């Protein structure tokens, strides 16, 4: 069984090696089959683990990674309910997206096609490492691994420098978070002499309040970077430069949820620090609202989805922050269904439009691409929280958890949820309803995507629709299967008592009415023939993302560049090297001066000689006096 567990991450790695090394020799079909096949087998192996209940609180150790007399970090995997759940998402959704990509990326030349799949496989490998690791160091290895894969895939079309900048920005912002994560790891190592989850969590009671707060805040800084929260969220919208399936896999379904995984995994530590929990909740809420407001007026279909992802991640952090870890993880799962579906749907739309991403140029696509239309509709309903879709169940639970924590939190979260419905319906209307606003050529080109793309869409649509039933509130006749499943690793969120059961009905009714109103409003505003997409006033500020990027440029990037330039050309060149060269130049200068003494005039030499002899005699005769004087001075 240990070998089987090892196979799950190793197969994608093998896929990476084979497809990557033989990228010039493999045909497109071949590399597509190989890459998807390896992920598919991993998925099946994960299912085997899932159904055979091969869970263990003990880690599977393969070999010692780093060892010294102070600590031992082993290369070991932890197969429990939490990691299995994430593995299912990663390999399952990952497999669908691989299959989708075989069609989506068909126009790439074979070697770049293969390169794409090699990166994708490497990504799955790193992500599996992240969730499988039995200590923080292995998690960090995966953590950085997914970061670099994200970098490579965002910059996949490397001829475009804009994309390269986006890729670099993503990696560097992630690195800022990684600093926090690494510091937390060092702190843990110093306190426990081990980074193993089992050791850390079982001895966590020995930590002082300051330690546990420090560690959790630093861990959260890591999560902020990876999961794109305020203030490090700006990379995620830019990351849309990558191919759309990449956005679906990395920047919606899996990598960006690594932060949630990390906090859920460390729930023992986080529960010990109320301060950190509050920070997590507040940052999550702020991000959820800020990103949702920005998403309201974006014209790029992928940008809307990107901000939507940031906002949904904010929801997850709200759930974590109020102590509902399982709810946060549950939203990761449902979100991975509907957001992957949205992105793949958007990919299908972009595919149909011949690469066009601007929603002001779309419209009325309902008839042309029906499968995409229906699946996209399901995804929109799910993310807006239409009753009994997966998104409804998970979001409902987040709201309930927030309600139990504090009223203002509940209302603000609800506000963010309303915004979610608004921007999603807006996109939906602009793309699929109204009249077509693109060029003649584009209209002619419109077509439904091939089965390799639509079948993953349909599967994900089914999951997005019914995925919530594993955790349907009991009041609707469901049961907390999901929470019970995770209970051994993550303590289940205690459901609020009977008194709040009524609230569920209010919420249900409110959701239905609210969505109806929003639907009608959006239909009136956006299901139109002409749409400019130009905004003024506050809308313009929102369309420009609150000018946050410009702000960062002004207060961080530019000053940093100036300081670097100052250090390079002033401090280094004139300062330090100036001193070094100055010493040399001084010696040269003084030797030039001293050389003048050698005038060549014999008379001068003799004069100096005579004077020196005289001085010597003087000194000789008065040496007692001089020595006495010197002694007085020193």
């Amino acid at each position, binding site marked *: 069984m240990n070998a089987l567990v090892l196979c799950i991450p190793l197969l994608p790695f093998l896929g990476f090696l084979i497809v990557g090394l033989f990228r010039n020799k493999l045909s497109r079909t071949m590399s597509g089959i190989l890459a998807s096949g390896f992920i598919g087998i991993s998925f099946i192996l994960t299912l085997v683990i899932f159904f055979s209940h091969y869970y263990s609180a003990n880690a599977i150790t393969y*070999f*010692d*990674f*780093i*060892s*010294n*007399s*102070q*600590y031992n970090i082993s290369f070991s995997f932890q197969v429990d309910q939490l990691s299995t759940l994430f593995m299912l998402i990663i390999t399952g959704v990952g497999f669908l997206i691989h299959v989708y990509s075989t069609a989506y990326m068909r126009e790439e030349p074979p*070697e770049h096609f293969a390169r794409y799949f090699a990166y994708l496989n490497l990504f799955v490998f790193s992500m599996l490492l992240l969730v499988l690791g039995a200590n923080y*160091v292995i998690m*960090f*290895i995966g953590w*950085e*691994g997914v970061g*670099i894969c994200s*970098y490579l895939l965002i*910059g996949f079309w*490397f*001829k*475009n*420098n804009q994309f*390269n*900048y986006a*890729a*670099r920005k993503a*990696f*560097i912002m992630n*690195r*800022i978070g*990684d*600093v926090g994560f*690494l*510091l937390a790891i*060092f*702190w843990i*190592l*110093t306190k426990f002499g081990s980074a193993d989850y089992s050791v850390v969590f079982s001895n966590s009671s020995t930590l002082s309040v300051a330690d546990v707060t420090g560690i959790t805040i630093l861990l959260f800084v890591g999560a902020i970077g990876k999961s794109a929260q305020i203030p490090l969220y700006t990379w995620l919208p830019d990351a849309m430069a990558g191919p759309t399936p990449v956005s679906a896999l990395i920047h919606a379904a899996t990598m960006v949820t690594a932060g949630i995984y990390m906090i859920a995994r460390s729930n023992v530590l986080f529960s010990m620090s109320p301060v950190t929990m509050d920070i997590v909740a507040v940052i999550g809420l702020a991000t959820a609202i800020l990103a949702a407001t920005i998403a309201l007026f974006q014209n790029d279909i992928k940008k809307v989805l990107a901000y939507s992802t940031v906002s949904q991640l904010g929801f997850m952090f709200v759930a974590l922050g109020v102590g509902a870890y399982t709810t946060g993880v549950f939203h990761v799962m449902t979100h991975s269904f509907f957001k992957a579906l949205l992105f793949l749907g958007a990919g299908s739309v972009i595919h149909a439009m011949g690469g066009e991403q601007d929603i002001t140029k779309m419209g009325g696509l309902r008839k042309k691409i029906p499968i995409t239309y229906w699946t996209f509709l399901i995804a929109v309903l799910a993310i807006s929280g239409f009753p009994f879709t997966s998104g409804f169940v998970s979001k409902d639970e987040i709201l309930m958890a927030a309600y139990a924590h504090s009223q203002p939190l509940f209302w603000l979260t609800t506000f963010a949820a309303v915004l979610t419905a608004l921007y999603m319906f807006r996109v939906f209307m602009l793309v699929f309803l109204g009249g077509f606003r693109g060029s003649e050529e584009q209209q002619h080109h419109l077509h439904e995507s091939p089965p390799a793309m639509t079948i993953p869409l349909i599967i994900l649509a089914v999951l997005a629709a019914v995925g919530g039933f594993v955790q349907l509130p009991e009041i609707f006749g469901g049961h907390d299967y999901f929470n019970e499943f995770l209970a051994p690793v993550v303590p289940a969120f205690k459901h609020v008592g009977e008194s709040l059961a009524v609230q569920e009905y209010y919420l249900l009714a409110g959701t239905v009415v609210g969505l109806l109103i929003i639907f009608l409003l959006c239909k009136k505003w956006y299901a139109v023939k002409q749409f400019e997409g130009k905004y003024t006033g506050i809308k313009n500020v929102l369309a420009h993302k609150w000018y946050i990027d410009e702000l960062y440029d002004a207060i961080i990037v530019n000053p*940093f*560049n100036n*300081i*670097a*330039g100052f*250090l*390079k050309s002033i401090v*280094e060149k004139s300062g*330090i*090297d100036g*001193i*070094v*060269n100055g010493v*040399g130049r001084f010696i040269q200068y003084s030797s030039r001066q001293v050389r003048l003494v050698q005038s060549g005039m014999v008379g001068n030499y003799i004069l100096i000689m005579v004077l020196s002899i005289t001085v010597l005699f003087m000194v000789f005769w008065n040496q007692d006096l001089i020595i006495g004087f010197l002694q007085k001075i020193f």
Partner: protein
Amino acid sequence: MIALLLILIPFLTGLAAFFMREGKMARNWSLFSSLLTLLCIIALITNSVSASNASFDIAWLPFLGSRFTLAMTGMVKMLVLLNAIIYFIVFLATFKRAFVQPGRFFGLMLLMQAGMMGVFLAADGLVFYFFWELALVPAYFLCSQWGNEKRIQATFKFFVYTFLGSLLMLIGMIYLHGKTPDHSYALQSFMHANLSLSEENFLFWLFFIAFAIKMPLFPFHTWQPFAYEQSDTSITIVLSSVMVKMGLFAVLRWILPIFPHAAVSNSHIIIILGVISLLYASVIAVRQNDLKRLIAYSSIAHIGLMCAAIFSGTVPGMQGVMVQMFNHGIIVAGLWITVEVIETQYGTRKISELGGLAQKAPVLATLLMIMALGNIALPLTSAFVGEFLMFSGLFQYSIIIGAVALISIILSAIYTLNMVQNVFYGHTLPATQDAIDINRNAKFAMIILTVLILFLGFYPQPLLHLVNDSVQGVLSGLNFVLK
């Protein structure tokens, strides 16, 4: 006996190479010589020869109390291995290149290798000093004869600067010799010298400045970017992969055991210098336009971190430094080889004049990407292990210093990815319009390095195991003081 062979093989083959007129013969000869050296050290490390081969002792200058003593610890073996590997790689990667006066070039290169071998192996102060200079002199001739237009100036600065340091060390050594109980230069006697605290402190600085210049550590670093920029890339590889390690190595072998009190009491200021070195060089690297200068500054940054980690006096810090000396040597060699390929093929090193190479030279781009990832210490490259341990050590020493030093991982990502992006991605520019991919020799050399980087990144145990005795040895001396 093998210990002596490790010096003699490059020394004698180097002398012989001087008499070779024909380039082809000289390069085959030196490749053979480097391979032979490599086999010797591999035989020693894998224990296929008896361990008694690891040391050597013979009377040398009896009237001065100096014996020709060579001795090995795990760290020494590792650095000797690094030296052997790098030379093999350099000769392999530049195999197709025609050098002016090949006999002299290869002769001097091999002599330099012999000198560095001696530095690593010597267990006697005078022998150490002798080889320290023996390594420097060929470097002077190499840098001043094969290189770019300002090479004389750069070499002069390099030579005078490092020579100044050497002289300080020599003064220290002679003074120390007078204080040893048996008036000898042996490392063991140095450790038992009767020194007062102030004497120890004074000698510590004499030695440390010599080694700090060699490393180089801020603010003694300005010779390095200039020298690297101006000398031929194959020489730069040797300088930055192996020679700068001499400084770190010397601190570990010739300072910490001899002046433990001074090392502990001065640790704070040196760690701060190291961290300044790390951040300062990283920030400057962000704005460099010359590939060689960029890598030079990145190298200064890494060395600064290593120096700081040494003086943290912690187990992970020490372990990290030792493995990182090896890993950094390997990775930086890979980076230099790409620069060499780029410079010889496209005739420019300016980052702004390059671009779009990934389209034209995919293999080169892939290999450089791996080296670049090593440079930013990405997990599963060997550098991660070293940097993780070093940062962990610094964090143990002081949380603040650890946190400040960690900022460098952001900076290293900025400048390294900047370089990758501007050189390999984007559109092709005039200089890279007709670019062709890396040649077979350089590719082979790079693949060897890549395999090493990835293997040691995934399974660093062999390296950690090799240096284990040195870590214990160095730390036991320091712990004695701390208690």
